[in-house]
């Protein structure tokens, strides 16, 4: 049987990088092509899997109607055997219930467990602004909006099914506080700082023992400058740059917010998400001030 594990995250928190690390575990001599990940795992909000399992035209369903069927899709996915021992499936959805009151991601009847990747919201904001081609302040507003969604258009058919995200804090809380699935928390900053060890621990939680040598090779193959080089050369299939040709693999740094945000923008994020930031170990500017004073 193929074991299903969610790779859950708020958008722009390192999900793609984690998937590239996992994909590079099977690369022996050269890095995996960043444009060759499509068949590996997929995303919970993909229309293909929905239509494959239900035989319905997802474009004839309202977002809410599709949501009521999504739990059935994940139950079916959990019974699939694709010949691998582990299938990591990306999910940006917050852990929520459908209109019928059951978990959208169907609890333990879907994936066995979840890896949750979080990232300092002050670093998410500039990345999200780049991704959605919006200003920084609009990105900060989006991250504070409890009704925020991806792919929620109703006058055209979005590429993916709608994903209800909640606000940034609510997203993290929805995954951390649900009791259906064991969750392993990965902070993007730890993944940057101690990539191999953090990655090996997360994969062990997912049930895959990864040797240090294999992990270090994958880390080397998925180095940020290498990903950027691949993207510069051939583009990235999961990314639709508009106009200026901004990169998907933009910066990938931790703490870049110190240069990218104004003091007021930092303040807005911290006042909206202070409690969850502290819970996840992201020191607020005020806390740093206190530490410096001590």
């Amino acid at each position, binding site marked *: 049987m193929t074991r299903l594990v969610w790779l859950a995250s708020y958008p722009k928190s390192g999900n793609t990088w984690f998937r590239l690390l996992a994909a590079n575990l099977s690369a022996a001599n050269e890095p995996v092509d960043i444009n060759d990940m499509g068949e590996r795992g997929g995303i919970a909000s993909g229309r293909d899997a929905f*239509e494959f399992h*239900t*035989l*319905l035209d997802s474009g*004839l369903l*309202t977002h809410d109607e599709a949501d*009521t069927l999504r739990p059935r899709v994940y139950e*079916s996915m959990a019974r699939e055997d694709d010949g691998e021992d582990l299938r990591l499936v990306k999910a940006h959805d917050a852990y929520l219930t459908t209109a019928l009151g059951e978990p959208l991601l169907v609890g333990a009847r879907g994936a066995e467990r979840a890896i949750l990747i979080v990232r300092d919201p002050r670093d998410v904001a500039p990345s999200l602004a780049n991704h959605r081609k919006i200003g920084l302040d609009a990105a900060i507003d989006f991250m504070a909006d409890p009704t925020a969604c991806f792919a929620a258009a109703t*006058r*055209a058919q979005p590429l993916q099914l709608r994903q209800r995200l909640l606000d940034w804090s609510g997203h993290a809380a929805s995954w951390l506080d649900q009791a259906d699935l064991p969750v392993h928390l990965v902070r993007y900053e730890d993944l940057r700082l101690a990539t191999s060890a953090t990655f090996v621990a997360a994969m062990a939680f997912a049930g895959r023992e990864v040797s240090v040598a294999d992990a270090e090779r994958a880390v080397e193959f998925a180095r940020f400058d290498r990903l950027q080089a691949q993207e510069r050369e051939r583009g990235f299939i999961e990314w639709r740059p508009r106009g200026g040709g901004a990169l998907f693999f933009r910066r990938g740094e931790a703490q870049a917010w110190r240069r990218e945000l104004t003091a007021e923008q930092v303040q807005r994020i911290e006042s909206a998400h202070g409690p969850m930031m502290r819970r996840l170990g992201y020191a607020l500017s005020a806390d740093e001030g206190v530490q410096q004073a001590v």
Partner: protein
Amino acid sequence: MYRYRIAGLTVSSDVEIPGLHAAAGDEAADVAIALGAVQERMDEAAASGPNWAMTPGAFLLRVPGIARFWLTGGAAITYQPEPEAAPGDIAAFLTGATFGILLHQRGLVVLHASGVAVNGHAVLFLGPSGAGKSTLATALAQRGYPLVTDDFCVVGADGAGRPLIHPDGRLPKLWAQAIRHLDLADRQGAAVRGRLSKFYVEPPQVAASPAPLPCGPVYALREARGPVRPGIERPNIVDAALLLRRNAYRARLIKQMGQDELYFRLAAAVGNAGGVFQLSRELDFAAMPRVIDALERHWAEIGQLAGAA
């Protein structure tokens, strides 16, 4: 009672189904669609999914909140609406899944395709839901190429085994955004479902006669992004066969219905007729004129525009 013609079959229905060609006559129909009681489950199914189950002769499809559909022998569809269903919902799902499955059940080759007539040949565009099939076909109808089919399409054969396409599509279904970008507001008809901003559109050009057309080139649509550059390529025969099979209307059912062979033969037949191609283009309305220009150049190159109209 309504009567329609789909894929060369006569269909009687006690519910109006917009977007199909009406048929005259009162002889017994090949397919009968009628309201009736439909059981919730199927015992001893040979194959099943979360909302469907099948035996060799019967198929149960459940659309939660809309209806249950029971298909038998490729000849009858019984539907039982759910209490929450709105008017129009039944028709939307009859053409939006159910009828396509019934055609599979009849052993026909059914593609997920929209198409237009070019010089007396049916040119098809394949792709999953959301790939832009209807939008491209309607934009081509604006350029004077009559709409032949929308969303699904049966590929038959003439006496010599050459593929034939039945002109089935009368009203393409477009989202509000596409209607606005293609400037088709004055041709917008009823909503496909009251809950969706997706509408039937009266196309600028429709195939004049229901007579089948020989199959011209078939294009699998994909978005040009990342490493995929805009253009038209001809895949090798193996990839062409995979593309056709992947774009069967409900590809999952092919294996379950034992129809693999049908699609391999189709690939050979279409390859010998107009050919199978991959059309990569930006999913952007502004690119549409360029896409149509590229198609017209391609038709000139492969001789599709030559000969008698």
